[in-house]
């Protein structure tokens, strides 16, 4: 990349008044570091990624409402976690956390366990128990 080819497009970084550093050659053929405000193809990719993640959240929400899964699944997706990550935060085996996704098992969870989930998701225990979406 040449210095004058370093893209300066709109991006999430630019909205955040930030930028990123790239390496490109100047007119003398010497590599220098150049700030870039963003690159359109990258922004497209990032938006696409968030779209897919939002779809997952929406699907989880529908599944919770139709009582297929417990609210834990919705909040897991909302926090961009997978089972392994959530299990690590819960300090439990993945197997047990997955079981908590069953509405029948979820209904029997102790207040302590629910509180731990609530803390991880940054919500109140009430929002878990009386899920409203």
């Amino acid at each position, binding site marked *: 990349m040449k210095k004058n080819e370093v893209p300066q497009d709109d991006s999430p970084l630019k909205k955040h008044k930030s930028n990123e*550093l790239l*390496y490109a050659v100047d007119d003398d053929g010497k590599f220098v570091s150049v700030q870039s405000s963003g690159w359109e193809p990258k922004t497209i990719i990032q938006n696409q990624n968030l779209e897919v993640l939002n779809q997952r959240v929406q699907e989880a929400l529908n599944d919770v409402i139709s009582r297929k899964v417990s609210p834990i699944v919705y909040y897991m997706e909302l926090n961009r976690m997978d089972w392994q990550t959530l299990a690590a935060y819960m300090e439990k085996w993945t197997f047990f956390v997955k079981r908590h996704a069953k509405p029948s098992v979820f209904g029997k969870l102790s207040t302590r366990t629910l509180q731990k989930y609530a803390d991880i998701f940054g919500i109140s225990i009430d929002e878990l128990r009386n899920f409203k979406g």
Partner: protein
Amino acid sequence: MQLDFKHRQSAHCENGAIVNLLNNKGFKITEPMAFGLGSGLFFVYLPFIKVNHAPAISYRPLPGVIFNRMAKRLGIKVKRFKFSDPAKAQQKLDENLKNNIPTGLVVGVYHLNYFPDEYRFHFNAHNIVVFGKEENRYLISDPVLDYTVSLTEEELEKVRYAKGALAPKGHLYYPVVVPQHIDLTKAIKAAIKKTCNDMLAPVPIVGVKGMRMVAKAILKWHKKLGVAKTNYNLVNLVRMQEEIGTGGGGFRFIYAAFLQEAGEYLKNPKLMQLSKEMNVIGDKWRDFAVEASRVYKKRSNTENVYQVLSEKLMELADLEEAFFKKLKKAV
């Protein structure tokens, strides 16, 4: 309290943190040189491991490896600590600040509130430097930002104790012994050889062979997994290439800058020429990203799009195979 510490922005967090720490100790080194000496350029495809619901692809070795290799090759001694108790982790950090030691931390990205939403994922190997504390807020030099930020004690504890894959467990480090004058000749040659051997490794998932495997997988994804899944896998491929502090083109531009610096240092015109070639290869990786992003823009989901992407990646693998064979002979 604010220590005398000069923050400088870098492309990649791991190199950026250590370059800033070393410069602060009076050892001048550039980011590309640190990256090159750590043999940072790499490619690996792990179809059996899922990251963010897509097969894992990485353009770099495991976190910490680049830094460790570089430190070893230069004879830099680094002290590292992990703590099972968050209170002790904070105590050690406060102690360091009192003793005038800017300290590197490994942290999780997800809870770093100063990043835009698009960048916040459960990636637990981000590097930052703490260089002071004012009114219970830690002063933070995040190498990928061009300004410094601050975090409260609670916020810092949260990111230091992020959980999941590669959980940092309060990981803290700082260089203790740095050589003042050092001849880089041997280190540069060894580092370049290592990169060439990695990229040409006779292992199907590593280096140029790994790229070919992904190129074939793109067609397979489309046939077996359908359009949505294929596009999502491609999104992750390009994100790894462009987003995670790579300096663009999957670290190729940083590496080209390293080759130029190495060429000047060793007075080796072949390396200078190869630096130019690597720059062109970096541009081609960017072209690949542009092509991949078109899949969404035009929503043209014919087999042809994936065929083109697959062929482009194959071409890149061929180019890089030839390149690293030449590079190996040049040092």
